[in-house]
């Protein structure tokens, strides 16, 4: 019974940790907009965590710059399982307008399996919300797989 409760809770209380890997700040503003009264991501239990040790969903925005690459990998490693990685905006997915730059070492899925990608430059808060919600469902599946 406890197991069932834990598995069910995994999708109901996803805590976010936001990593900016060289984003232009456009996506970051939109992610913060999700938490505002208008969109209110807390409805679904989303909460910004202070440390990756507490986080379930890692929200990555921005093309992966060379400077931020090691930090990104380290932070992802430090997050306990089960965890999801969500890329917000086109940059982590493809590099967007920065593609081919000497300072960019993307895309994100070179380093880690990306569970949900929210495309757009910048994606609307609604889209981000949906992406996060999907990630929460994936979390539950991951937890179920882990508890077997």
């Amino acid at each position, binding site marked *: 019974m*406890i*197991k069932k409760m*834990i598995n069910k809770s995994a999708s109901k209380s996803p805590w976010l940790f936001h*990593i900016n890997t060289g984003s232009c700040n456009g996506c970051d503003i939109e992610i913060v907009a999700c938490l505002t009264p208008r969109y209110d991501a807390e409805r679904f239990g989303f909460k910004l965590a202070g440390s990756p040790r507490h986080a379930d969903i890692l929200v990555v925005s921005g093309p992966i710059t060379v400077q931020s690459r090691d*930090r*990104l990998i380290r*932070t992802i*490693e*430090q997050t306990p399982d089960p965890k999801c990685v969500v890329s917000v905006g086109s940059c982590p997915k493809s590099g967007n307008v920065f593609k081919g730059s000497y300072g960019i070492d993307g895309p994100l899925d070179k380093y880690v399996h990306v569970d949900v990608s929210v495309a757009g430059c910048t994606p609307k808060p609604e889209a981000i919300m949906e992406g996060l919600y999907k990630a929460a469902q994936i979390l539950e599946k991951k937890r179920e797989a*882990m508890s077997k």
Partner: protein
Amino acid sequence: MIQHFPVLAVMSLFLGAFLVEIFGTKREAVRNAITFVTFTLVLILLYALIKPVILEGRVISYWMGNWEPVAGYAIGIGYEVDALGLVFAIIAITAFWLSNLYSFGYMKGEHHLGHFYTLFMMLCGSIIGFCMTGDLFNMYIMVEIMTFSAVALTGFNTDKDGALEAALKYLVICSVGSGFILTGIALIYLQCHTLNIAQLATMLAGRLTPTTLMSFGLIVAGFGVKSFMVPFHTPLADAHAVAPSPISMVLSGVVTKAGVYGMIRCIYILFRAMDLTQMQILITTFGTVTMFLGVSMALKQHDFKRLLAFHSISQVGYILLAVGLGTTLGLTGGIFHAANHMLFKGLLFLAAGAVLHQTGGITDLDRLGGLSKKMPHTTICFLVGAAAISGIPPFNGFASKWLIYQAAYTKAIESGNFYYLIVTIAALTVSVMTLASFVKITQAVFFGQLSEANKDVTEAPKVMLVPMYIISALCLITGVGYKFFASYFVLPAVNSAVNVTNYIDVMMGDGYAAAAGVSNMAADNVMISSWSPVVYLILFVTVLAAACIVILASSGDRGRVVEVTDKDALKHSNFFSGEEPVYSHVSGSDMLWGYKHNFKAYYNIMDKIHTGRMTDYCSMVVIAAAVIIVFMFMFMR
């Protein structure tokens, strides 16, 4: 047979000191054997006295050379053991026995160890003699031997930075204090022509002529110096920081208690002046100031042992505050706290000594850190000591502090004096400040990150760990069974302090006290509130067991615990906002910033007072003594 035990105890220690000096300077085994056997013998002798003296309430007297009183006048030197003296003697011998065991490991490899143990045994002998003597001048001599050997032991490591300086300050200031005591004794002799405490008690009680008042003030000031209350506290802080750790333990656990004992003996038995309101206010004020100043100075220190030294001062403040209330409940709390302080402060000094010994002499809190992984046993013992001194239930520090709060609050209600409410609040607040400074040490020394310099530190040897574990166990036992200890160990001492007729009669012959018109004080020892550590522990264990069952039963469902297999694995590295982990330790000086910022002005004043200049300290001593005497002349005539 039993009446010879006190004298035998003192004499065997002094004899042991000689034997060590003669036979033990070269061979370690002989030296250790002599000291261990002597201390164990004295331990047995004194513990054998518990049954007749503490449990049955007898008073044992012994006249040196059988010079018994003639026609109601004491001529010879008498030893007299009542429960009060014996409790302090037992505190002393327990501390010394453990400290001796510890020093076998700690002092190994030092030079001149023969002299060390000689002085060590002389210190112990003098303190036990001090607690058990019935003669005022003998008391002074024992105090002098005590000061003397304590000074020599403080400066024992002459190579250590500051050791000589601390020893000299200790010697000069304590000599001034001894001078006060001796002058007081001389004035008493001038007035009464006797030195026997029992006889003097019949003569002095309630008769404060200018001469005896002067001597009373001088004696209070003198024992104040010996118990290191503020403003006489300065040499203690210096001495603790530089003395070898076993000595620090006995300095704070026993030598300061000797001063407190002298104070109790003089105020309660010799002058019987504790029912004077002014006397109570005087002593409680000194206690409160000592308590607060000690802990606030401790919060600012960054030397491990110096910090602990200021805590000794602070805890002595608690004891003085409790003793100064003049109620039996207060005295119970005070004596119980004295015993407990010996235990937990001894434990803390031994832990500090273990750290110092294993890291090669580092006591700077800013250079230590992360030692808990290397010294787990020391860490456990230290945490027990820290919990006990900060008064976390169910350890012993809480039990005695709680008695002190009750006593202070009772006093506030009974006397209707708002001042005692302030005292109670101060006592409760100082307790949390104590916790703060121990959090500081815990973080700075035992937790946090291990520095590169301390990478090869190992756990302390067994002979040092055994005393530490013994004291840890005692801390818990006395905390849980505080009712038992308070009523079977402390209360007899309190009774013997307030009911002096028996003390006088045994010494001077039956009916002497009644003839002199001395009567007993009414002993009312009502505890006003409830604290039952046994119930708490049962509850704790029950809930803990339930929690463990739940945790174990659900262990398959929960997320797993990821153990550290590879130290450099990214997963286990500390979170540094994504950066590569570097050595970054929050050390002692970085802690408690918000507090220090608000107390900046106060600490500026304190820095101006604690100049380190001996002349300033001596002036403080003399001025404070003058203030005490003037206070007495103004308000107690």
